[in-house]
């Protein structure tokens, strides 16, 4: 390989690293929103009202039964149309331009929330009843019981599932390249097509994703030690 083609490969370093940062931003934001959706979904599924339970079950079941890529494409169109309609209904004039970033985060968070609902539901159900009854006996309000007892007691059960979902999310960010948003994989595809060095660039993309997933494995191991502090026999 002569030096000019090496230069043209190296010229892509900046854009690719920029794409990697965008990917991390999408993943972190979508994860945060997904956590919130998951808590809401799990609360809905465990609530005493049948209508709310049905809503929560419907959300998590339907979203989990349909392929992510299909959902991302469907929500991409539906989401932008719904938002434009809402904008028009609120008296806005003309087209509302929704950035690719917002769409990518929104769509991934919506999917993530459905899986997170199941993780949190299982983790909450695994809390020993006595702990919740003790909180009631001490006169905790429902809110403070949730914040002080349910969340800390559920986290050790939920963390393995949460860590799995984070890894799935990081890998799913590559899917938003299909709707044309410039994250890591989209940039890599452009680089590969323009230099025709497909093998090299796709291997580089794989290596970057691997760094992200292996790095977050280490972080989740630390987090698990933290939430399990005070537990005996682990």
């Amino acid at each position, binding site marked *: 390989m002569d030096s000019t083609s090496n230069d043209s490969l190296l010229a892509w370093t900046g854009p690719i690293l920029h794409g990697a940062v965008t990917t991390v931003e999408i993943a972190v934001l979508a994860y945060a929103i997904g956590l919130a959706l998951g808590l809401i979904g799990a609360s809905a599924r465990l609530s005493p009202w049948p209508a709310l339970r049905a809503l929560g079950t419907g959300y998590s*079941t*339907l979203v*989990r*039964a*349909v*392929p*992510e*890529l*299909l*959902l991302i*494409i*469907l929500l991409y*169109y*539906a989401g932008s149309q719904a938002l434009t309609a809402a904008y028009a209904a609120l008296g806005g004039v003309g087209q509302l331009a929704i950035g690719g970033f917002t769409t990518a985060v929104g769509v991934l968070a919506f999917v993530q929330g459905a*899986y997170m609902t*199941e*993780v949190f539901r299982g983790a909450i159900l695994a809390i020993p009843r006595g702990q919740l009854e003790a909180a009631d006996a001490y006169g905790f309000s429902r809110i403070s019981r949730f914040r002080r007892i349910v969340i800390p007691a559920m986290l050790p059960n939920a963390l393995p*599932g949460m860590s799995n979902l984070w*890894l*799935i999310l*990081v*890998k*799913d*960010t*590559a*899917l938003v*390249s*299909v709707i044309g948003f410039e994250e890591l*994989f989209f940039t*890599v*595809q452009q680089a*590969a097509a323009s230099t*025709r060095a*497909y*093998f090299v*660039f*796709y*291997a580089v*993309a*794989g290596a970057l*994703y*691997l760094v992200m*997933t*292996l790095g977050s494995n280490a972080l989740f191991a630390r987090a698990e030690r933290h939430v399990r502090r005070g537990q005996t026999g682990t």
Partner: protein
Amino acid sequence: MDFSWLTDPFYQRYLWTGFVNTLWLVAVSGSLGLALAVGVALAQIRGPRPLALVVRGFTTVIRGTPLLVQLFFFYDGVGRLLPAIPGVQESPLWPLLRDPFFYGALTFTISVGAYSGEVIRGALLSVPPGELAAGRAFGLSRWQILYRLWLPRGFQLCLPTLTGEMILLLKSVPLVSTIAMMDLLKAANLVRDETFLVYEPLLLIAGIYLAMTLVLTAAMRLVETRFPGARPVKPRRRWLLPG
């Protein structure tokens, strides 16, 4: 909602081809992938140390990178290098090597091999050692212990998890629409481009996927209950396993 295009035999053919290709891809990569998974699991448990390390690296890389990237790596990365190798274009395998289906099946087989390999490895390790010792006490050969005791018991332990893996496989099939293979999503995209209907074709195949997921779950449930020595399973209220 306008579904009148469904009566057009042209679009029916798209959807049918996409549907059949989807099933084929799941069947081929599911069965080859599970066979690879058994090898991946055994190599890590019983293989010589260098082989075990290589296989461990293989599963780490496959499970740590997006399936879409792997698909492009094999289809565009490896696939475009192949014609440069002398003799490949004349070989009888060439028509296969030009077919996107081959790259889809290859990528998914490898993926199933890595993910399910870890599941099967865990299951094989949790077969009580006493049962294998009993096999040795009865004078079974190593091979007989493997395929009469160890593998059946291991599969029995991880069948529900493997059901989940097969559903994940089914749900990753739409990725092949990005490498120009005719699957259900590709068919829906073609209908969308030609009829200018955005939601109808996508919603239709979302419904088809929902149905396929339910049928696959029910079929695997049947395998789980019929599997030799399976304990009677309590009817589950949840149909869909989490991913």
